[in-house]
């Protein structure tokens, strides 16, 4: 009897009897990166959605008399314009708040669209292999050979620019990394025994793909997502800077940086403020991505 008692005691030490959900909540509570990332992303999203409530001024009203007012902490700044004004005298904080709408919309929208396209192609190509895989790889090579910014410009130019167009065009042009990662991993997982096991208990291809393979790609897809989101936001900025993205006077962080470029050396805050916002968002998305990975992964990372 003593042996069994010992064995049971030893087991009780190792095994925590919690449902996966309870365990996730427990892990989330002790994961600082996740909490910070989630806090920033959620607050930014709320600010973007309820921009009119938060913005102290109308972001489009120009007041040339008050152009280039420095932020409140600099000499000559005032509480009326906490973050100062731009070269047309528009309140910078209000533009930043309204800009969050475009930047986050484009960032999340395009990254999600690219994710759906890339993961689908990657899963199918990796799982089926053979000719389908060759065709998908050919498509990938073509896409990589094209200068994507030029292509985006051309597409936006033809369709006409709007935030929706930007999301669609950038999404369609940013699926390659998802596809490469998904395809390689799918090929590896396809040959593992748990896929054979799933088939031998009667799962069909669709069940194997969605129940066995896809959940195991989650970690890597999240990492690619957080990287791609940053790239897409920067791309939106480039397009806006080139005049085919968001049209002035609409505010976007990318456009704000672009407009301030000429004054970068005299009024650095014009670049630093939207840059810092962008940095904070990308950092938060990365932390959130890593956090979600750590929380949902069955293996406990240290």
């Amino acid at each position, binding site marked *: 009897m*003593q*042996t069994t008692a*010992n*064995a049971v005691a*030893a*087991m*009780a*030490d*190792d*095994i925590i*009897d*919690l*449902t*996966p959900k309870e*365990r996730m909540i427990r892990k989330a509570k002790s994961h600082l990166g996740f909490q910070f990332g989630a806090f920033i992303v959620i607050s930014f999203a709320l600010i973007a959605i309820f921009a009119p409530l938060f913005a102290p001024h109308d972001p489009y009203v120009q007041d040339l008399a008050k152009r280039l007012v420095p932020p409140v902490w600099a000499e000559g700044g005032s509480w009326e314009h906490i973050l100062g004004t731009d070269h047309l005298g528009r309140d910078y904080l209000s533009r930043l708040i309204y800009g969050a709408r475009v930047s986050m919309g484009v960032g999340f929208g395009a990254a999600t669209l690219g994710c759906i396209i890339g993961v689908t192609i990657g899963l199918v190509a990796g799982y089926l292999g053979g000719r389908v895989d060759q065709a998908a790889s050919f498509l990938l090579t073509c896409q990589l050979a094209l200068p994507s910014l030029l292509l985006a410009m051309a597409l936006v130019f033809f369709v006409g620019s709007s935030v929706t167009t930007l999301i669609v065009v950038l999404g369609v042009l940013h699926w390659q990394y998802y596809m490469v990662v998904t395809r390689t991993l799918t090929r590896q997982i396809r040959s*593992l*025994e*748990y896929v*054979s*096991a*799933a*088939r*031998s*208990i*009667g*799962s*069909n291809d669709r*069940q194997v793909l969605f*129940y*066995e393979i896809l*959940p*195991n790609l*989650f970690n890597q897809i999240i990492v690619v997502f957080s990287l791609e989101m940053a790239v897409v936001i920067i791309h939106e900025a480039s397009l806006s800077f080139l005049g085919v993205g968001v049209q002035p006077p609409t505010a976007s962080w990318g456009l704000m940086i672009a407009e301030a470029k000429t004054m970068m050396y005299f009024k650095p805050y014009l670049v630093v403020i939207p840059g810092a916002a962008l940095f904070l968002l990308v950092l938060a998305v990365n932390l959130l991505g890593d956090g979600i990975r750590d929380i949902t992964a*069955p*293996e406990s990372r*240290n």
Partner: protein
Amino acid sequence: MTALLEVQDMSVTLKLAEGEMTAVQDVSFTVDRGETLGIVGESGSGKSVSSMAIMGLLPRGTRTDATTLRLGDVDLLSASEDEMARMRGNKIAMIFQEPMTSLNPVYTIGRQMTELMQLHKGVSGAQARARAVDLLEKVGITAAESRLSQYPHQLSGGLRQRVMIAMMLMNDPELIIADEPTTALDVTIQAQILNLLKDLQKELNIALIIISHDMGVVARVSDKIAVMYAGQVIETGPVSDVLHAPVHPYTQGLLESIPVPGQIEPGGALGSIPGLVPSLKTRFKGCRFANRCQRVHDNCQQGPVALQEAGSGQAYRCVLTPAQLRDGTPSLSARDAGDGSYGKGINMDASPVLQAIDAGCTFQVKQGMFSAAKPLRAVDNISLDLRKGEVVAVVGESGCGKSTLARMLLGLQEPTAGKIILGGQDIAGLSDMERSRKLQSIFQDPYSSLNPRRTIGEIIRRPLHLHGVGNVAEQRAKVDTIMERVGLPRSFYYNYPNQLSGGQRQRVAIARALILNPEIVVCDEPTSALDVSVQAQILNLLLELRAEMGLTYLLITHDMAVVEHIATRVVVMYLGRVVEVADTHTLFSNPRHPYTKALLKSVLTPEPGAGVPSVDLGTAYPNPINPPSGCTFHPRCEFASDICKAKAPVLESLSTTHQSACHMLEEEMA
């Protein structure tokens, strides 16, 4: 005179995120020139860490303490990193388990062999090459000169391991550490490599440490043995004393849990040690084996147990005296020892439940991007019947097509010729659902056969969900029942596979396969990834379940000892063809095909000092893409004659239960 290598009270402490872990504690041994020490233990027993500590190859942040750690007159503990690097090249050499990955694929054999010598000894390129050729010949490689310009991928596993050994000899080492040197090799190659190591060691007067989980290997090549458990040496001494008269309950149990051909009646239960190897993160108070030991009593937890002398150099780590320990109390638990009646009362009738009829599977393999595809006959025209209640074992070395055959029988691989009949119907015409209700499988590697993202409960419940059996509550109840039946605690329901040990995972795989009440279970190497003491538990469980549920097993394996233990009929495969079929008893007592004989001969039972039987199969296993003409076995067969090269033999019936394909037998019969 003092020994070449002296290790006294060595402990290795690893730093982990949650604190320190003592992977090896108070390990002592000595090895002299010309002497072989075998270190045996299950995974996680600290045997590899000990050897890495001697080599100074442990990662940063690891602390090695010892009262003595000395090779020749060099103190390995205080040696600087540079000195250690020089020692590793010149005096200590290590042979690793995986010859596929321990040679660098982008350099030629010659470059890898000579580089080390030129670096350490400062000899010219020509001198080094001459020595390399010399040594390659010594390890039995033909056309040694031309091998120097070959790349590792051009050589077979056995040849690579020979190259590895030759490479290690380049600088005349004094000590060779071989960490599982034959585990990754086929059984027929294993004997050759072990003999080679042994001969070289005698000839060159080298000290040899062989580390293995395989009692058979260690018993046959070592002079001294150290049995490790949970980071400690729990028994040590001359190999014949330890194996013939083991003192420690763990050693006793370990030896009894190894299936030895000819000792157990077929279908009888194997002895097994209950429980699991403890995690090294556990805080041990006293004896580390106590929670699995049948003789446990109050003194066991009273503090660390020291090594006790048991006479003639034998020592053990237990609180009891040798006389008390040898009183005949069984070292295995009563439940696990069973009553040996599993095989009885099973109704074997003659109707085949699963049949392969002239089944073949040919893959088209492209060797280069532009070369034409070549056919690879993985399975060539095999007919096989599986009758209700039977346990049919398919044996053969890697590359013989046994796994492809299993996949075909499971309906996961479509045969390119012939057909598979399941319960009277062609399997190709059955839906996934119909097929999986009758036919299930257990896979080899419990680490990759369970989806890491699903909980144990989800994994076992999945077949019920797919087949729409009952509602969630009923499914849950069924899962609970079967988990209890296969010996998994209910609390594992919400655990993920990575929190379980190998043996527990294999129990999960068994539960998943049996929850639909199938008729036939295909087991692909069900125990080859498990530790010896756990292997016996799983084999017993399979046998019990067969008796209870009236299952029919198809067992795919390379382990002849396991075959003899649980199979009723054996099919021997070689290069995609069946070379011999017989009931288990006949096959083991009267093997007729030369290949079967060689396979049986290569089984290493733990007999101290018996040496390794030389299995003379000449060349390596042929590449299945270019199979030899006629009888595919002829290049390796000592009896081969002209007819063997010209014509392939067919399966001849020697008796109602025995068939073999060999020209010699045809002549005999004529």
